[in-house]
């Protein structure tokens, strides 16, 4: 079964094949791309994934519903907590569970804190690919503060298993709201530095503007989502399109840019960080300081029916398709991961680009392999 994108031994004298990955510092994990080069130009690019395939979907069929939440955490491990939500929302829909208001706002705060943390990791490691080390040191230092706040309440730094059916698992630490507000003030002062170091830097712009252009129609057809889609001029954000939790009551904008190049994707993520700050501020203001944090959930969960729910995580449209057969274990769970769809764009974006730009394009897609391979 030989298809057009399958790699063949090269029969052309002027073409060279390069294996990038799975061990490569610029692939952000265990991606392998076979790149054909003609001088500096990429003639073909074939991505190979599956080096982190951990049989999430099979093993989750053998686990009860509360147990599965811990597994979903491990998909997009950079924005750990966010992955729990689509699965929880789907099961809540099937069971008809009501979520108290306070829990909805707490979920939004944590969700956006992890978006900040994830974008900081992306910014640091992405700039490493561009050859800049300073942003990496700065962003991880700021991320550390987010994780400290999260750990105080949720009990773990990266994969806290904090959301649960009907709300969140435990009440927040008394200092939580003050800590988050302090962090936002601190982070707002940091953002201009990142703008100066990255987005406004002529050195960065010289490498990013006009590189890896993704047309709007192609982005939609390929099922791209998140900042990659929005940088191509499509204002599709699951938080607006199918709102969940407390997002309907919160005002925020969806940053969109028309160019569709690497610079636009960086720009969108920068603006998303600013929007996240706004969202968290509003959520803190609106959260009831005291009240229930968890709704009533049946003690033995017997889920019947099928439901697909999606949320907008840092990388885009993350969905969970839960099929229950009336027992306490799901019949089938399918996780629709944003990076999986985004990585299909590799041949579209890389072919015709220069080899040095391939690294920049890959870092602007920002894949996380726990979620690509599952």
């Amino acid at each position, binding site marked *: 079964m030989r298809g057009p994108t399958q790699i063949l031994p090269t029969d052309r004298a002027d073409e060279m094949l390069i294996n990038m990955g799975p061990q490569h510092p610029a692939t952000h994990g265990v991606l392998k791309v076979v790149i054909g080069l003609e001088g500096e130009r990429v003639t073909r690019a074939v991505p190979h*994934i599956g080096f982190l395939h951990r*049989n999430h979907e099979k093993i989750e069929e*053998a686990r009860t519903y509360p147990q599965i939440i811990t597994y979903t955490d491990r998909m997009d491990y950079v924005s750990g907590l966010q992955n729990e939500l689509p699965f929880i929302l789907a099961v809540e829909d099937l069971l008809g569970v009501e979520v108290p208001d306070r829990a909805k706002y707490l979920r939004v705060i944590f969700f956006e804190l992890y978006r900040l943390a994830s974008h900081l990791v992306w910014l640091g490691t992405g700039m490493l690919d561009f050859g800049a080390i300073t942003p990496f040191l700065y962003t991880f230092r700021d991320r550390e503060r987010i994780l400290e706040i999260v750990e105080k309440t949720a009990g773990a730094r990266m994969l806290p298993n904090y959301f649960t059916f009907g709300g969140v698992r435990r009440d927040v630490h008394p200092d939580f709201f003050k800590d988050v507000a302090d962090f936002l003030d601190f982070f707002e002062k940091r953002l201009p530095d990142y703008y100066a170091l990255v987005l406004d830097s002529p050195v960065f712009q010289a490498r990013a503007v006009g590189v890896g252009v993704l047309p709007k129609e192609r982005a939609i057809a390929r*099922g791209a989502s998140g900042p990659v889609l929005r940088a191509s001029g499509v204002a599709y954000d699951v938080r607006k399109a199918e709102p969940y939790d407390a997002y309907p009551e919160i005002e925020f904008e969806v940053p969109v840019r028309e160019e569709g190049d690497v610079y636009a994707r960086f720009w969108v993520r920068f603006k998303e960080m600013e929007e996240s700050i706004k969202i968290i501020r509003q959520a803190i203001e609106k959260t009831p300081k005291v009240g229930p944090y968890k709704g009533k959930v049946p003690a033995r969960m017997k889920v019947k029916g099928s439901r697909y729910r999606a949320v907008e995580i840092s990388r885009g449209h993350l969905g969970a398709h839960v099929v229950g057969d009336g027992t306490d274990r799901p019949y089938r769970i399918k996780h629709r991961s944003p990076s*999986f769809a985004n990585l299909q764009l590799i041949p579209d974006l890389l072919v015709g680009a220069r080899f040095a730009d391939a690294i920049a394009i890959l870092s602007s897609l920002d894949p996380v392999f726990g979620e690509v391979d599952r």
Partner: protein
Amino acid sequence: MSLRFKTREEFDEVVYAVHPEDYRPLLEQLKGEGFDYPRNLTGMDLEYGLRVVVHLTRLADGAKVTVYTDVPYDAPELPSITDLWPGFEWFEREAYDLVGVRFRGHPDLRRILTEDHWTIHPLQKRYDTGGYELPGWQPKPWPEVADWEEAPEGDEGGEA
């Protein structure tokens, strides 16, 4: 010829249960109705056959549809829809790899997550979690399908 399918409302989306022969014509029709964004494609094993579930949305107004169809074990073939939504290319490869549905006309139907030389489709129910065949596993009989042309009514969707 009219298409053989049943529809029902489920939460905020319309669910189509479609005859496998009309799977592609129905999706072509939906594409014509403006469902442009590929949300998800799930392959699953029902212990009597394989099912493919397609989730689509229309970016303009946020309308959502779900389409599913069942194929038997001995002929797990469906026409590919990658030319309608190129975003399903890897999703179909994944469904082939993990569940074993073969998509006719797919440009590049190779294994994607497991290694190329593997022969099992590990998400089928005949295998245990570790990928070993369960002793004594037998497929269930194909369920009686009511007449396709009948008026839309809610059948049990998504369960075995």
